């Protein structure tokens, strides 16, 4: 029985109990959320090492880091190092987005190294294998796509990103509308190319019931991807994007009816004033399914700093109701992220998630900030560094940007204002 079916039958599973304890809410709150589809707990029956997490309404906003083999020079060991870095930096989930090389081994390594939920995008592998087998990805047999999906599910992947709603209608809409950048999603682009070359509908849409069957069998959570996510501000909320979202809504309903947990992937590039509308549309059309957003990036021009760009968009999305943030690294739009960039990406996404949680009034988020501010007030440096979102970085900077062991910091030096004012307010010493 899938987790969703159990929740619908009123059963509280150990996974729900664990998530309830992590989030400091009642198991019944989790069960109801899962039953209603507002919360998902991605946990494949075959992923033995997993510590389940909950993603959805009323829970702490989660972040996901992506790794994977790209190109000829990619090495599995390097990617495993990135996984470890991402976990140390505090990611809540991982995606292995390998597109080439020994994809099967990479996936197994990821599942073995990760105590967090793992997601994949099986179409990448289907394309790569078709390329090898036939010398051309357009010659892929639809059956092979389903075979790869089942392979990933059987290996223990907890959530599968699939472009089930990128239909011919949506593709034609994109062409009609004259999108500036219609080729944004790597998986989506290949799937679209295959559909056009073979003049047939998207098999993942047409045979969606088969997708559901596999997902149910292994208790996999679907993470339906958006082939038409906007790749620049000018394309945001255009007809193609919205049409795909309408279809995603239809597929959410069918997944729930089929006892399959589901979340929806989202943009992409959009101006700040589209964020709330985008999240509201998704919540309405997809009936409260958790929203897994990539960024979003609020400007197109921040190459080299897109992790910060995405942190701004992610924070506002989380506030607006998106529950799951896919990280963006400083290498976005430039190349494959280094280990350091993976770390930067995770931290930036976590900052965004936390800022969103504060804005939503989540108690534990506010408690964390309050404790930090009290530590500042008391000039308690040890505590401040412990409470920092990234204690290691805070320590490094404190060490390298100061001289001496003063209770203040080099910004104010001996003129630490907080010490002066504390004396006259008869309170303890303060730090800014």
């Amino acid at each position, binding site marked *: 029985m899938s987790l969703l079916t159990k929740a619908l039958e009123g059963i509280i599973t150990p996974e729900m109990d664990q998530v309830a304890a992590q989030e400091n809410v009642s198991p019944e709150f989790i069960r109801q959320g899962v039953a209603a589809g507002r919360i998902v707990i991605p946990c494949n029956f075959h992923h033995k090492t997993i510590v389940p997490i909950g993603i959805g309404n009323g829970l702490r906003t989660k972040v996901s880091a992506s790794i994977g083999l*790209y190109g000829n020079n990619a090495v599995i060991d390097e990617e495993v190092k990135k996984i470890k870095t991402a976990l140390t930096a505090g990611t809540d989930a991982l995606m292995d987005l390998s*597109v*080439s090389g020994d994809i099967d081994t990479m996936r197994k390594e990821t599942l073995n190294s990760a105590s967090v939920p793992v997601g994949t995008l099986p179409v990448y592998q289907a394309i*790569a294998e078709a*390329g090898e087998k036939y010398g*051309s*990805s*357009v010659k892929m047999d639809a059956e092979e796509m389903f075979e790869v999906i089942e392979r990933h599910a059987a290996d223990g992947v907890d959530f599968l990103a699939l472009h089930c709603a990128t239909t011919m209608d949506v593709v034609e809409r994109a062409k009609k509308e004259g999108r*500036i950048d219609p*080729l944004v*999603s*790597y998986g989506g*682009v*290949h799937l679209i190319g*295959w559909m*056009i*070359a073979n003049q047939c509908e998207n098999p993942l849409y047409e045979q969606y019931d088969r997708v559901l069957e596999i997902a149910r069998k292994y208790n996999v959570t679907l993470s339906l991807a958006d082939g038409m996510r906007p*790749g620049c*501000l000018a*394309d945001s909320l255009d007809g193609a994007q919205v049409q795909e979202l309408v279809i995603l809504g239809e597929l959410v309903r069918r997944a729930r009816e089929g006892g399959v947990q589901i979340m929806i992937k989202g943009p992409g*590039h959009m*101006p*700040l*004033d589209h964020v709330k509308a985008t999240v509201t549309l998704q919540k309405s059309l997809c009936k409260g399914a958790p929203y897994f957003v990539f960024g979003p990036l609020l*400007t197109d*021009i*921040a*190459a*080299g*700093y897109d992790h910060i*760009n995405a*942190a*701004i968009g992610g924070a506002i999305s989380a506030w607006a109701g998106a529950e799951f943030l896919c990280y963006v690294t400083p*290498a976005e739009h*430039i190349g494959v992220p280094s280990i350091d960039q993976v770390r930067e990406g995770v931290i930036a996404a976590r*900052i965004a998630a936390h*800022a969103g949680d*504060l*804005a939503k009034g989540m108690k534990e988020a506010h408690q964390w*900030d*309050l404790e930090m*501010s*009290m530590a*500042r007030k008391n000039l308690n440096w040890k505590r*401040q560094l412990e*409470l920092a979102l*990234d204690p290691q970085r805070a320590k490094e*900077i*404190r060490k*390298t*940007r100061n*001289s001496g062991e003063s209770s203040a910091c*080099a910004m104010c030096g001996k*003129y630490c*204002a907080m010490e*002066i*004012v504390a004396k006259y*307010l008869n309170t303890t010493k303060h*730090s*800014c």
Partner: protein
Amino acid sequence: MTQVLKARSGIITEEMEAVAADENLDVEFIRQGIAEGRIVIPRNKKRKEFKYCGIGEGLRIKVNALIGTSSDRDDMEIEARKVAIAEEAGCDSFMDLSTGKDIDGMRKQSLSLAHVAVGSTMIYQAGIEAIEKYGSVVNMREEDIFEVVERQAAEGLDFMAIHCALNMDVIKRMQTVGRVTDVVSRGGAFLTGWMLHNQKENPLYEKFDRVLEILKAYDVTLSLGDAIRPGSIADSLDGAQLQGMIIQGELTRRAQEAGVQVMVEGPGHVPLNHVEATMRVQKRLCNNAPYYILGTLATDVTPGYDHISGAIGGALIGACGADFLCYLTPAEHLGLPTEEDVRTGVITTRMAAHIADITKGNKQAWARDLEMAKARVALNIDGQITAALYPEQLKASAATTTNDHVCVVCGTGCAAQVAAEYFGQPDDSMSNS
């Protein structure tokens, strides 16, 4: 005649012309904005021509960097390099917040190096000189405060942050509401200590007309300091902050009436759901004067990454109407920024400002993003570098990144190429997932 008095008399100045050209706007729009106090162009009449920046409604959001020595890090050469870095990274102005040994010397150095507007927080120097002369900031003499205002104005500072809006009412309110982090503004703390010790009203509030007189003589733009800004998420929009805003509003009107350009400084640590209200109240109370924001920091817990926390808040408050963003660096809350921190701070804050400009429908900002989008679609790397927020970074990354083409596995009939042909596009299959 000051800039604002000229604007009111219908005179178009060279500063207005330069700003209009820079913003691609009608100069009459600028003149009117200045006349009504919605726009300021900081420029001390003693300063030679520089790259003027207009700050206010309808204009691109501007970015300020902070430099300056402190008692722990007192090296004027490093600070000179920071000025160059901040300008290269694209700041629109900077403030010299020195509290080291030679504050006068630092200010002269900053003014001589700057190609942009320069500001200061005058009470630092008054307070530190009092400590040197009389042993404590609480022994500072009233006359000394006004002497420093005059000295700094006479030397050519274009804008001066002065904590005039801190008065006894505000301090009492703060004591009543019980804050988590009472006063986090260093200038505000100097004055709070002085006022409580001497049981006297803030001279900069009580004798505000004297402040205005000095600023008017040199045509310095007043940046009304925010002594009571929230230093923690928990203190945002409390009674003390609001009381301070009300006083800022009162003084803003008086400055505007006196013919002195004025902008208003604001928070601080603000949760995202407070940002819009903060901005609305401030603009309402302060007669739509330009709003100069520190941050806003969207969380308290990110030492080491406060430039990111500040960019999150800054983009949103900019979208809600803030006109001028003060940068935050990765060193915030931890120490004095390095040169690299300064660069990172300026670029990050520029990104926040740009995102807000986009949101407000600024045409130049939209054109830049469209240029980037088109360069990406055309796989035009040079075009992407030109359109980038910080081209140097992208140029360096592009040179060192080995961008292995992943589609080798597809062989000849790559599906992505089919899709590209269908849409009449070059093959952009390197895009992520």
